[in-house]
């Protein structure tokens, strides 16, 4: 069931008796890592907001960032890795459903979905099956509920073959004066169950999520819940309408640990309790035990705490939408979760035993040998490139870099008609918020390979890249939600990776003033093939004061000047730039070395420069340099609208003493590629100097090819049609 002997003894000690079966089940799910964060909590204290929230008595469903005086933006990301590994369509679909509920239970209308996906190489049939069906599951669910899927990222690596990662993020907008909390403050108020009936699906899903996948994981298919997006759509509308009645005091989604979690968490926070009768719970089949009802993770259900005497108002709203709304009990003053079946008490546990008393473990860390080896790895063993054209085509057709059009064409990214910078056109999606002049920019990002070879720098880069992406659209990075995907935390090297990544994320989010406002931890991402790369994914929210100032990533027309922005003191360093790079992996099949270090303060300056330059309307395009470095960024900006470029890398632009592969494909942080009106070049140069950056003109946009000259020689000369063909290779392969 997931509890160890010591934990069982602790339960007996707390209860001063042996627990009943139902009670034991309730403890097992609430004390799982998935619900109780028993391993991660000490490390999560590194996040400032988390620390403050824990001190204040509880972390709410999702954080909220004010947009203006009236409205706030809520967002959260969550993993659904294990369910997706055994049942990709439903696993991914219910991942979307769960995170959407976290948003509207706050009183926020969901306005966007993002996702971050990791699979093994798509050339393998099993991986391809998982990839196709995860996308289909997200598409089916998201499209049906009418929330646009606006951005995402997909990365392939053998490390994810046995254990794909499916992280879903949702964003919502709420009136700041109507934010809802998961609390149960008033004794006597009604406990109202709404939504789908409770079935036998998903029992012990949280426990399942807290173990490694193995050969028998397929047998856990029944642990995977089945999603009903139509029901979810009704639940969104009905719940937002019910909140308007003013009768709802608190509410929580029934996600992991179902009815157990939604009864004990709000009451533990409020210092109250509940007395509920499980026979009142609508079920999908007769004869369900209290154990099953308390632990079911059936989807599309929520628990509402409603003012005594005003139950009928709430019931009427749900009835209009054709949904269940049943009073199953009352809030009581006594701090106990009392569960009855046929009036008889089958479980009676002080709420805080299930939440606050969840044991905390301080796990050992140990730096793994491969990291020490990576630190010593020398690039001298790798020959420099001789054919930059071939190298670029190879990079563009790498599934990690290639266009994901095949994926986002299946997502309705335009419903709600707010998506003004769509997938494939910008470094982040931009939504115009109806009724305001403002926009929000959204991005989700992460790089498992960087984190594997250098957890702290990798964690910093995850935040830096996401923030830079958002800033490239002209939006100021404002907040982070993170999903932390790791292996078994009791292995010291895994916990070392975890702790390092969290440190890096915490440092970067403090440096950029983008607090981590919500998140999720997913351990045990392992299979018989070993653990996944340590993979934190960072969801980033940026705000554009004037959405009209948004900036795309593609060269929009000919005769613009292409400009590279980088720190004033930047110099290409072959050793650092190729470390843990996509170039090394794709072209040389070598994965080693460490990602290039960078300064958080310089990175922050770059974000501020981008926002200021966008405000002054100096940017025609802005695209960050990330996987594949300068050459790939140039190609991507050219491919988007089919506008080529003629580039000359002067000695100022590239240190000629360094290797060509590092100059063209090296991966360094704090760099972006712009296109600007030639007449604006001086203004750009003046502006960058205020931020400690340099602006280097590289050439001119135009034509239907991409040419790059270095040291007076043409090293790259490719028709855009060839670049596009390589860039479309993943989508073409998936369409067959």
């Amino acid at each position, binding site marked *: 069931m997931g509890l160890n002997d010591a934990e069982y003894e602790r339960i007996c000690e707390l209860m001063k008796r042996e627990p009943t079966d139902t009670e034991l089940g309730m403890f097992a799910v609430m004390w799982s890592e998935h619900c109780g964060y028993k391993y991660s909590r000490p490390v999560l204290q590194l996040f400032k907001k988390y620390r403050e929230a824990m001190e204040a008595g509880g972390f709410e469903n999702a954080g909220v960032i004010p947009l203006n005086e009236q409205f706030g933006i809520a967002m959260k990301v969550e993993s659904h890795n294990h369910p997706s590994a055994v049942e990709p369509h439903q696993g991914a679909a219910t991942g979307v459903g769960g995170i959407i509920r976290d948003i509207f239970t706050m009183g926020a209308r969901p306005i966007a979905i993002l996702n971050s996906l990791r699979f093994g190489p798509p050339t393998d049939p099993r991986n391809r099956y998982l990839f196709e069906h995860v996308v*289909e599951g997200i*598409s*089916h669910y998201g*499209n*049906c*509920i*009418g929330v646009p899927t606006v951005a995402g990222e997909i990365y392939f690596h053998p490390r994810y073959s046995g254990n794909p990662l499916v992280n879903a993020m949702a964003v919502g907008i709420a009136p700041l004066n109507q934010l809802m909390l998961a609390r149960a403050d008033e004794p006597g108020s009604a406990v109202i169950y709404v939504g789908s009936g409770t079935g036998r699906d998903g029992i012990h899903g949280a426990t399942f999520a807290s173990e490694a996948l193995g050969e028998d994981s397929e047998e856990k298919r029944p642990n995977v819940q089945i999603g*009903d*997006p*139509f*029901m979810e*759509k*009704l639940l969104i509308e009905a719940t937002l309408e019910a909140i308007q009645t003013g009768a709802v005091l608190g509410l929580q989604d029934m996600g992991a640990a179902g009815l157990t979690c939604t009864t004990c968490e709000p009451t533990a926070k409020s210092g109250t309790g509940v007395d509920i009768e499980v026979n009142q719970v609508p079920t999908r089949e007769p004869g369900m035990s209290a154990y099953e009802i308390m632990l079911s993770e059936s989807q599309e259900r929520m628990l509402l705490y409603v003012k005594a005497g005003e139950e009928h108002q709430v019931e009427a709203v749900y009835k209009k*939408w*054709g949904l269940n709304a049943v009073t199953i009990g009352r809030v009581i003053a006594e701090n106990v979760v009392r569960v009855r079946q046929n009036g008889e008490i089958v479980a009676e546990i002080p709420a805080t035993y299930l939440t606050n008393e969840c044991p905390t473990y301080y796990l050992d860390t140990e730096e793994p040998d491969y990291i020490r080896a990576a630190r010593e790895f020398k690039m001298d063993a790798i020959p420099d490139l001789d054919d930059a054209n071939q190298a670029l085509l190879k990079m563009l057709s790498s599934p990690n870099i290639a266009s994901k059009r095949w994926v*986002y*064409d*299946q*997502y*309705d*990214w*335009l*419903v*709600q*008609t707010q*998506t*003004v910078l*769509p997938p494939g056109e910008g470094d982040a999606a931009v939504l*115009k918020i*109806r009724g305001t002049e403002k926009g929000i920019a959204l991005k989700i990002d992460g790089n498992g390979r960087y984190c594997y070879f250098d957890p702290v720098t990798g964690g910093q880069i995850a935040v830096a890249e996401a923030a830079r992406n958002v800033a490239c659209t002209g939006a100021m990075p404002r907040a982070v939600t993170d999903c932390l995907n790791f292996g078994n935390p009791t292995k010291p090297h895994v916990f070392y990776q975890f702790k390092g990544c969290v440190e890096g994320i915490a440092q970067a989010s403090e440096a950029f003033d983008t607090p981590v406002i919500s998140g999720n931890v997913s351990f045990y991402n392992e299979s018989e093939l070993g653990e996944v790369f340590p993979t934190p994914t960072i969801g980033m929210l940026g705000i554009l004061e004037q*959405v009209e100032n948004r900036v795309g990533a593609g060269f929009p027309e000919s005769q613009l000047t292409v400009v590279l922005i980088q720190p004033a003191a930047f110099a290409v360093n072959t050793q650092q730039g190729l470390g843990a790079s996509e170039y090394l992996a794709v072209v040389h099949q070598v994965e080693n070395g460490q990602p290039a270090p960078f300064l958080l303060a310089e990175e922050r300056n770059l974000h501020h420069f981008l926002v200021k330059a966008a405000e002054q309307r100096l940017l025609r395009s802005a695209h960050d340099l990330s996987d594949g470095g300068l050459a790939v960024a140039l190609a991507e900006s050219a491919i988007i609208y089919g506008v080529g470029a003629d580039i000359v890398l002067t000695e100022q632009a590239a240190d000629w003493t360094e290797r060509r592969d590092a100059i063209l494909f090296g991966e360094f942080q704090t760099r972006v590629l712009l296109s600007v009106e030639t007449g604006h070049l001086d203004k750009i140069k003046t502006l960058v100097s205020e931020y400690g950056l340099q602006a280097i003109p590289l050439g001119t946009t135009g034509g239907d090819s991409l040419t790059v000259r270095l040291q007076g020689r043409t090293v790259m000369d490719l028709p855009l049609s060839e670049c596009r063909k390589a860039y479309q290779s993943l989508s073409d392969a998936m*369409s067959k």
Partner: protein
Amino acid sequence: MRAAVVVFPGSNCDADAFYALRDELGVQTDYIWHAETDLRGYDLVVIPGGFSYGDYLRCGAIARFSPVMRAVQAHADRGGFVMGICNGFQILCESGLLPGALVRNEGMKFACKPVYLRVENTQSVFTRGYQPQQVIQIPIAHGEGRYVCDEPTLQQLREENRILFRYCSPEGDLSEDWNPNGSVDFIAGVLNERGNVMGMMPHPERACNRGLGSADGCRLFESALGVLVG
């Protein structure tokens, strides 16, 4: 001048149509819940996109039996204008207000992207604001948007000039490369015999503001409403 946007449980483009009509076109617009039985007083009724009642059966198969659809039928009988968009088009076909049916896209996948349409009929009340053969850009977002009908119906649609829009290339050429779902004869939208009920799979309400990539859809609503004003 009043417009109604019908709301079924599971509609999800109702708000988009509402905002396009009210905010972009300045029309007094109301939501009409599926249980309503009376549409008198409205000039234009829009049946929006979405997944009415979940669409777990054939798309639109349940919605056709809803109370509001009897009112839509009565509205059409009175000569009122009806526009079905995406799921709304599917519902109108299921209800028999429009001929043909919408089936699974040829590629089997849901597709969301901007497409090009050629305006084939500029005589109808819905399309008279366009130029003959004008190419417009309107996004699609559907999994079951492949228009099919039997051969006599197709003949009739052609002869009676009731094909409003065809999928085409940016230059206005008809080719399977630019047919996003495999629709017969590239059909993207059709008109009823009387000329007051139309349905289309692409979403004009998503193309009423340049910020969203195209404002080509405005003309459609303007045409219908402009006629009523005049």
